[in-house]
């Protein structure tokens, strides 16, 4: 199998290199064929791996590819850990990536940077696979930063746009703030365990549970808490949790296919994956888990609110992604790691579907993204409309759909948790259900139904997008509907994650959920009568009333609550605060240090003062001097030789 694993990561890398370096020579078709072929190979092999590990129950593979460095007896390696968690992740990643590759043929059809784009997304696939297949922290960090790099390149893909190159810089820097914590976390792991291999670290972790470290004088903190919170700060950056979420909405400046692939389905879930992978560590610190839980619930609820006031089709979906990432984080916080991974997987399908659907609308609307200029699109683009509806139903958690199974499991899990903060979390995720349903149906109604508000020219040219676009939509719609019912039992209540994800018995909320679980069918039927579904219907009803029955009402409400609306429109002022405090503050501090300390004190007083002194002395002895520096230097050497001769003569 080792060669299979290697081929899975190398096939997309090969495609990326060929399309990137020889893009001009192989042409557009060459570029998309070589990358699609690479990712397709990778996907098919992932299916083999999935069967090998998950269905046939093969032992996890843990092996090294090459040794990066050996230092102080610590081997830092590039290597793979392939177990059921990895198998599920690589299958999801390569499937969505393949769909996005095909879709891109249609979406980027007229773009000058066609080859470059394919090269980037294939490179992304490679990086993401390296991340999820890592068997050590070093390679995890490699993948972590590599996906960040590709995200940077892709957000700024249209590098002529000022907004795009602002957004990509912002995304990279905010992620770097997260990495700041992440790297310190890795350093802490190395200090505590003297190894960066998952295997060694996880094996030794229980022995370290009681260890403390002193960071502030006089305060002994649990080592595990420190490690876990530092690592989680990295996850907050990558998975866009409050307050490091600000980059994700702006990342929508990139072309839509990458919003689907990177900023919804895969890269942003890297943080979720990482915490699930680190479950043997997180289980040892309730403080860290509570921290995770609270951050997740804040993100789930408050980012959902912002989805309501957005008018850009992609940004609505982006805020929905933020909110859903919050749900996954909440699941991690209550130790329902497998529920988080389950939601990660279902979300990858339906969110990629929603983004690609949004992209299809954008193509049809000639790159108009403002939903106020849409409406009634359902009859022009039936496939897009119907698949988008399926995606929406999955997202809001309609019983039977994929999103329902994953989201309801999270709600139940939070319900059974006794961790500090779980009360607030339960409230947040419950209310979040209503909010999700409301903004999702608002988007759906405003875009696909109601009055047609586009201009005449656009309206005349409206038509369904080509097959390269709609086929991926259909292929994504299928798992968005069925994957939940198919996999909930093995993933949450079976032994798929046995030995992969560790849960302390005291934290095992899913065991309680399992007590009430009597098959996927029954779970859905039960769901129809549950509180969450009532909230879903309430959200649907309010959206229907406000945007279909009384479309003038939202405007009125907006004016009535102008201040609240303003706060939400300005995204709770995070951006403005960061802009004025960190960005301007950093520049001002830099300027002050430069002007006063460097130029003023050091150069002005010390150096130039000394220079003036020298100048004065040399004006006294000018007649002895030629004024050329190299003569001075020669004189020094000659002086040295004379000195030496003197020593000898003596």
């Amino acid at each position, binding site marked *: 199998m080792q060669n299979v694993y290697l081929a899975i990561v190398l096939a997309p890398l090969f495609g990326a290199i060929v399309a990137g370096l020889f893009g001009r020579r192989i042409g557009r078709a060459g570029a998309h064929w070589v990358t699609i072929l690479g990712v397709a190979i990778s996907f098919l092999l992932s299916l083999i791996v999935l069967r090998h590990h998950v269905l046939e129950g093969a032992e996890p593979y843990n092996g090294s590819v*090459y*040794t*990066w*460095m*050996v*230092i*102080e007896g610590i081997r830092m390696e590039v290597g793979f850990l392939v177990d059921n968690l990895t198998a599920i992740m690589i299958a999801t990643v390569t499937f969505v990536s393949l769909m996005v590759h095909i879709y891109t043929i249609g979406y980027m059809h007229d773009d000058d940077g066609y080859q470059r784009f394919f090269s980037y997304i294939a490179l992304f696939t490679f990086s993401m696979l390296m991340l999820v297949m890592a068997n050590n922290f070093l390679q995890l*960090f*490699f993948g*972590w*930063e*590599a996906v960040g790099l590709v995200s*940077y*390149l892709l957000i700024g893909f249209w*590098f*002529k746009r000022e907004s795009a*190159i*602002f957004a990509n*810089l912002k995304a*990279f*820097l905010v992620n*770097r*703030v997260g*990495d*700041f914590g992440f*790297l*310190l976390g*890795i*350093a*802490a792991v190395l*200090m505590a365990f*003297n190894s960066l291999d998952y295997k060694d670290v996880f094996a030794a972790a229980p022995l370290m549970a009681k260890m403390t470290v002193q*960071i502030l004088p006089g305060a002994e903190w649990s080592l595990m808490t420190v490690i876990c919170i530092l690592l989680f700060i990295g996850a907050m950056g990558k998975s866009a949790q409050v307050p490091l979420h600000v980059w994700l909405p702006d990342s929508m400046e990139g072309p839509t296919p990458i919003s689907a692939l990177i900023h919804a389905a895969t890269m942003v879930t890297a943080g979720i994956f990482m915490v699930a992978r680190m479950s043997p560590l997180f289980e040892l610190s309730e403080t860290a888990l509570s921290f995770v839980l609270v951050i997740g619930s804040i993100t789930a609820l408050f980012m959902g609110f912002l989805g309501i006031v957005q008018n850009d089709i992609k940004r609505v979906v982006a805020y929905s992604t933020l909110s859903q990432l919050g749900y996954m984080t909440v699941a991690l916080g209550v130790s329902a790691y497998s529920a988080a991974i389950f939601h990660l997987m279902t979300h990858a399908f339906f969110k990629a579907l929603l983004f690609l659907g949004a992209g299809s609308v954008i193509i049809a609307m000639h790159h108009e993204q403002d939903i106020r200029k849409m409406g009634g699109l359902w009859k022009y683009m039936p496939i897009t409309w119907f698949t988008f509806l399926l995606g929406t139903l999955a997202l809001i958690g309609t019983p039977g759909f994929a999103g329902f199974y994953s989201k309801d499991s999270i709600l139940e899990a939070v319900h059974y948790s006794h961790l500090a903060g779980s009360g607030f979390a339960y409230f947040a995720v419950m209310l979040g259900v209503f909010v999700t349903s409301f903004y999702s149906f608002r988007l759906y109604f405003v875009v696909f139904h109601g009055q047609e508000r586009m201009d005449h020219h656009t309206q005349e040219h409206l038509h369904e997008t080509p097959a390269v676009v709609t086929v991926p939509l259909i292929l994504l719609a299928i798992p968005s509907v069925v994957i939940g019912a198919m996999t909930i039992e093995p993933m949450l209540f079976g032994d798929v994650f046995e030995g992969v994800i560790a849960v302390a018995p005291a934290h095992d909320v899913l065991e309680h959920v399992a007590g009430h679980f009597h098959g996927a069918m029954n779970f859905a039927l039960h769901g129809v009568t549950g509180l969450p579904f009532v909230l879903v219907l309430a959200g649907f009803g309010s959206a229907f009333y406000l945007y279909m029955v009384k479309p003038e009402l939202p405007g009125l409400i907006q004016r009535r609550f102008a201040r609240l609306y303003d706060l939400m429109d300005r995204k709770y002022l995070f951006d403005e605060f960061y802009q004025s405090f960190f960005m301007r503050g*950093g*520049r001002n*501090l*830099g*300027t002050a*240090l*430069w002007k006063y*300390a*460097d*130029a003023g004190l*050091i*150069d002005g007083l*010390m*150096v130039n003062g*000394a*220079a003036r002194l020298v100048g004065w002395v040399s004006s006294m002895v000018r007649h002895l001097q030629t004024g050329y*520096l*190299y003569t*001075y*230097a*020669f004189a*020094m*050497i000659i002086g*040295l030789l004379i000195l*030496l001769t003197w*020593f*000898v003569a003596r």
Partner: protein
Amino acid sequence: MLSELPPLLSLVIWFPILGGAAVLFVGDDNPGRAKALALTVAILTFLISIPLFTLFDPTTAKMQFQEFVPWIPALSVNYHLGVDGFSMPLILLTAFMNVLVVIAGWEVVQYRVAQYMAAFLIMEGLMIGVFAALDAILFYVFFEAMLIPMFLVIGIWGGPRRVYATLKFFLYTFLGSVFMLIALIYLYTQADSFEILDFHMLPLTLSEQVWIFFAFLLGFSVKVPMWPVHTWLPDAHVEAPTGGSVILAAITLKIGGYGFLRFALPITPDASATLDWLIITLSLIAVVYIGLVALIQQDMKKLIAYSSIAHMGFVTLGFFIAFSIYRHTGSLNGAAMGIEGGMVQMVSHGFISGALFLCVGVLYDRVHSRQIKDYGGVANTMPIFAAFMVLFAMANAGLPGTSGFVGEFLVILSSFKASFWIAFLASFTLILGAAYTLWLVKRVIFGEVGNHHVAELEDVGRREIIMLSLLAAAVLLLGLWPDPLTSTMHATVDNLLQHMTVTKL
């Protein structure tokens, strides 16, 4: 020892020097032949240096490829050469970068071409001499002589304020090296020998050590440069021609770091242990303060110069973190990581800063401005160049997979063992390094075409592609597989750590 081998070290020192003299002899009237000869000499020198790596025995800390000829017997001054795991990689770096400098100056330098090429070749030999010398006086002679061609390069081919820059450079380095010379002479009076390795074994009282340490500190901190003796560097870079900047950043700064490893740490271990807080503080100031200063620079060369200072902060931090680890944990676990991290950072910074200065040179040759505001949207007209620039920028920001990551990563891992807060402050490089580098990229490379100069830009030609590709390959290779470099250092580092921890009192 290895009698069948030719005297490799003498060859890599004197071949480029004599080659430089030959280039001078060809003269400025035959620029074509002078350049061809210079390139041949530079490439041959690099080829001669390769056996130093391939035949290097990584299992020992002993000096290798030693050559010994008495020079001034009465004073026991000897022509003594040899390399260990610290000096060998730096010699290869020097030989490699000089090939690039010759290529970089190929079409650009029009004025006194032969002299320009000769200056770099002679400087190359002298710099290699600095790294290879095992006799203190020999070291000092190379150390000072090396400056002469650099003064000439800046003074003759430099920008409008070259006189100010050279004077500043001269003042700083002169001040530093005078004290170093005094320290070396004092050590001679105690050891009755100018052998650097004898100095390593010399017992010294703490107060003696402190004085000597400060003398070394003055000499080497200027070269690194460390805050607050760094202000010559931005000026020197701004005025220097591209090749001068490349050598200055890639090699000259490394002589400062090398000096700490060869002199300060093993000769004055107790003083180093007592005063390590000073070096650590100055290193962190370099990372954070200089990082902020780099952020607001308007001149591309100044920005990269400040970025160099910030990156060299990791070198000094890595070298001096060992004592703190020992005090904090009672073991030296993690100390080697710091020193090797510092060494990798030196080599890597040679590639990256060299590459960035070459990139600025590429733009300067076309537009004749170093101001960021005179650019914008370069990617539109120079896509291949933009790809290189983004790669080197990412390397400068320490992206894993590039060489820029390795050193910083090791030093942060190491410093965490000493103190959370040292690691915390050092990690600011993740944010600041990315901020100043990528903001530069945003303003220069991305965006709409900024003005008609940018609109008329021609993308890099074959000569420039070769030069940048060589560096790109080096940056990626070292980032993806640093083991070949670090494994040559292990024995040398262990040996140094022994010197550092055995008291001389």
